[in-house]
């Protein structure tokens, strides 16, 4: 294994910095446009961009080390990824009750079913260098679906609170009173995966497939494998969304079938940890 400083000084890394600069320049353009149009999204956009860069570089620096860990630890690593993804995703819920817990369960279920099945089918090799990146990709995509689900669910319930309560007040069971809006949230959360599937090969020629073909693989096999990847993303997203919708539909009500108020004041990670420790 090459030492970290040597890796950093690799000419390829230096060259990569120019590419990073180019990507940053266009991303900065988005932020500038946001500022000009007064969208107020600069902090969120800029913050996520910088953060993504730092995180992925750190991961790049660590990944060599990572691949030397025993296979069993990849489970721990994936579990940690699920928790962190859930922590990020829950913010989209804007005060939806139990958003973190629901996200953990939904992401864990959605990605675990897919990862375990595909490992069993041999589509994912039983090695750390396969399990961690492919698992991470599945979790990341499931998180995208989960975030959209939370965001839409929160919006649907808040803007249709009167409609839900008017029907609830008639003695309709809560899951029926809210079902229309839950369905809408599921549908919205699955738009990206469904559209990606629909345009697969026509508009969207995914990077992995292109890479495999350039690397000399049989294009048909590359296409097959790409479909497998898309299938995994599709399944993980779908399972996550279905699980989250079911749990959210229940969490929105009290035991006495009252629609809860969504309190948007969210604790920071530190405050939440402190609260847990104090308990």
């Amino acid at each position, binding site marked *: 294994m090459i030492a970290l400083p040597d890796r950093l000084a690799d000419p390829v890394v230096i060259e990569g910095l120019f590419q990073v600069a180019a990507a940053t320049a266009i991303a900065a353009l988005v932020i500038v446009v946001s500022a000009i149009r007064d969208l107020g999204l600069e902090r969120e956009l800029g913050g996520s961009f910088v953060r993504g860069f730092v995180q992925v570089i750190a991961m790049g620096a660590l990944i060599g080390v990572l691949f030397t860990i025993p296979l069993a630890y990849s489970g721990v690593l994936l579990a940690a990824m699920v928790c962190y993804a859930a922590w990020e995703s829950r913010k989209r819920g804007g005060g939806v009750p139990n958003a973190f817990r629901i996200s953990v369960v939904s992401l864990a279920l959605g990605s675990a079913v897919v990862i375990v099945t595909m490992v069993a089918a041999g589509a994912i090799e039983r090695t750390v260098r396969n399990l961690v990146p492919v698992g991470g990709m599945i979790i990341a995509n499931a998180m995208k679906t989960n975030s959209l689900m939370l965001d839409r669910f929160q919006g649907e319930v808040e803007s249709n609170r009167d409609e839900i309560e008017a*029907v609830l007040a*008639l003695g309709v069971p809560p899951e029926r*009173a809210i079902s229309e809006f839950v369905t809408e949230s599921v549908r919205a959360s699955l738009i990206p995966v469904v559209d990606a599937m629909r345009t697969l090969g026509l508009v969207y020629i995914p990077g992995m497939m292109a890479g495999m073909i350039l690397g000399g693989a049989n294009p048909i096999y590359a296409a097959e494998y790409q479909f497998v990847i898309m299938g995994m993303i599709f399944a993980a997203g779908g399972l996550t969304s279905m699980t989250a919708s079911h749990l959210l539909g229940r969490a929105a009500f009290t035991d*006495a079938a009252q629609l809860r108020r969504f309190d948007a004041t969210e604790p920071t990670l530190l405050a939440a940890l402190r609260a847990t420790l104090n308990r």
Partner: protein
Amino acid sequence: MTHLRAEELSYEVGDERILDGVSLDVASGETVAIVGPSGAGKSSLLRLLNRLDEPTGGTVYLDGTDYRTIPPERLRKRVGLVPQNPALREGTVRENVTIGPRLRGETVSEVRLTELLTAVDLAGYADREASDLSGGEAQRVAIARTVVNDPEVILLDEPTASLDSAAEAEIERLLSDLLASGDRTAILVTHDDRQAERLADRVARMRDGRIVEVGTPREVIT
């Protein structure tokens, strides 16, 4: 015929005390109007009676039974609320009027639907889109939507608040027909003292989350 008794009902959200020990006794078949300025807690009281919100103190008795021991879905069928905002859903008048039974997996006969629509002066409206209705028509659909359950107690939250005087008169006439038979207990929230006088057997006046006066319309409204 159902007798409703609220006992020391309190409701707080955070530090804010919205209802402060409200007690109210409504006899079987009686119509009680609750009047008072906005922010007095009138609508909050109705929400507690339908148990859309949970009282932070006190409880309600329905024919002597603590309402917390009745499954909420059954309670709300017995004590129906007509909210101030009709909040109709997308779809036809028929779909909106029958939504309660439909979502509980029950059916409403065409005869019953016609009877209900006639009672709220919307005969022939069954297949109209809810989004095409006027404010007064939507309010009448909301009344029919609650009455379809045949509730023992009906809670009416400002049924004419956002209507012009013609639509208001129409709703008042329909309500007095609905409540006059005397077999339905009713609580009517209104900011309009005259309306309370016209429709109610007794009037309770609320201020700052408390009932400050109860009596005949003549005693309370001057």
